[in-house]
């Protein structure tokens, strides 16, 4: 396995809902464990739900699915082993309707969003402590994470002050533009 492959594998697993993944190359061993808590899975998919989806009714020719945001694992590919009853093109439409539940709960919080596309890192290196963790109070201009793109490690500074309520993205996960990274309680 090349490094790039390994990298991709790691990203893939990271993006996934697997709780465990083991592998052995000599005589090949593999052991995968998935997340049992279905609820969490749904939540994770639902959270990213965009305000756009609130835009009440565009009754489109196509029922537009809430667009995949933040970046989520590719829909089932047609090329390798396509589940024919659910082609990639239709896949989004078949996702269960996402609720705005989380959104409402969290609506009193402010969001720090990613200003660029790249890979999200909570700390400057694996040994270091995260820039910001739940419970921390942050100030305007404080670095809260790094988003790496094209080998540049961009320090993301908070434009708001408050207490970190939630970290919305896992470490080393890819993020899109405008994706919510942190929830901040301005009164915290």
């Amino acid at each position, binding site marked *: 396995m090349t490094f790039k492959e390994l990298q991709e594998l790691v990203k893939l697993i990271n993006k996934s809902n697997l709780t465990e993944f083991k592998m052995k190359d000599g005589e090949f061993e593999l052991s995968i464990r998935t997340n049992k808590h279905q609820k969490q899975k749904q939540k994770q998919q639902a959270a990213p739900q965009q305000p756009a989806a609130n835009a009440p009714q*565009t009754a*489109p020719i*196509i029922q537009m699915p809430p*667009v995949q945001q933040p970046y989520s694992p590719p829909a089932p590919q047609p090329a390798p082993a396509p589940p024919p009853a659910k082609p990639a093109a239709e896949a989004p439409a078949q996702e269960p309707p996402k609720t705005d539940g989380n959104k409402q709960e969290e609506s009193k919080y402010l969001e720090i969003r990613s200003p660029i596309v790249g*890979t999200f890192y909570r700390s400057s290196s694996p040994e270091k402590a995260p820039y910001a963790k739940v419970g921390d109070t942050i100030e305007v201009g404080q670095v809260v994470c790094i988003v790496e793109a094209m080998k540049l490690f961009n320090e993301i500074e908070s434009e708001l002050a408050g207490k970190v309520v939630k970290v919305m993205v896992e470490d080393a996960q*890819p993020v899109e533009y*405008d994706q919510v990274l942190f929830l901040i309680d301005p009164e915290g």
Partner: protein
Amino acid sequence: MFHKVLIANRGEIALRIIRTCREMGIQTVAVYSTADRESLHVRFADEAVCIGPPSSTESYLSVPRIMAAVEITNADAIHPGYGFLSENADFAEVCAEYGIKFIGPTPEQIRKMGDKITAKETMVKAGVPVIPGSDGLVKDLKSGKKIAKDIGYPIILKATAGGGGKGMRIVWEEAEFEPNWDRARQEAKAAFGNDGIYIEKFIEEPRHIEFQIAGDQKGKVVHLSERDCSIQRRHQKLVEECPSPFMTDELREEMGKAAVQAGEAIKYEGVGTVEFLVDKYRNFYFMEMNTRIQVEHPVTEEVIDHDLIKEQIKIAAGELITGGNYYPNAHAIECRINAEDPFNDFRPSPGKISSFHSSKGHGVRVDTHVYAGYNIPPYYDSMVAKLICRAPTREECIKKMERALDEFIIEGVKTTVPFHQRLMKNEHFRAGNFHTGFLNDFDLTAEPKK
């Protein structure tokens, strides 16, 4: 062949490319700005990455953002579409640095054709006719007269600082040279504070006729015949067709040969278009080369029965061209349906499409990214669909286009459909009797003739 292609574009062309990739078994990544969340290219791609806010400079024109999307999705090639970064040599170079295949020509080829002066020089060397003119600014009246005589009348005097027709004067014969020369200089001085003048051959009743070419990585170049794009409004193409109603077999051979020479001169890799002006005597002159797929490529696809995007991807993957030139075996016309109000100076009309029905049936193709409920954002170009018809003859093709335009329903925004409906009824258009100035005289508000 590529494993995963990222499409660094939006709208119908992004969707167009996704379709071909799917047919080729290649995975696709769409990138999009926040204004395009609901666009079909986002929906139909295997993966989609939001790269920035609506502003093009921070999204579709941002090299770092697009490269970051490539990184997180592990795409191995980028299709730039048309517009945006498609003719950006620096972008092509960055792709190469990152080991990502840019589906298109090399940075060097883009640069060679991107700079007009270099392009013209290259063409002269390759033996491709260019518009004759003075070599830069004209020194004085006497040398101007000599140059004009050498080129042959009519000629046109142009202000080097000019634009918008100011400081431009057509001279039909030598006796008129001096007074026009004086006035052109005065005008230029008054308008731009610079009375530098150059001379060019004046092209009478110019038609915009371009040749589609394709070149492989070994330097083999073929042409896929012409497209007539003379129906323009302020240099914006509105209708394209193949064959050109002005074309003859001999002229196609000559122009095709020149187009292939143009491609060979720079060992052109990919699909590209060599644009010519053709005067009423069927003299033709190189204008410029577009080093990318063009909006109007379906016109060629319909008459030669090949998928140009597929050919483009195959060439980028290193496949070699085995065949020869391609000639039209039918007639095709494309009408660009823009969200513009043709009765109000083609003012853009963004907004929500309340109802939408695309024309269908034998010989009718619609390439579009919109649908009922779609909101046309005001940030990008106004084209909402391309309506392409194909029939055995031009006459039948026009009738089919009339039918297809009548059937095309788009409500909630103004579109150019009524413009095209009137154009199709215009007797000069029907007779194939038009040039690039045609729309200046075409009265849209008048009742069309039967």
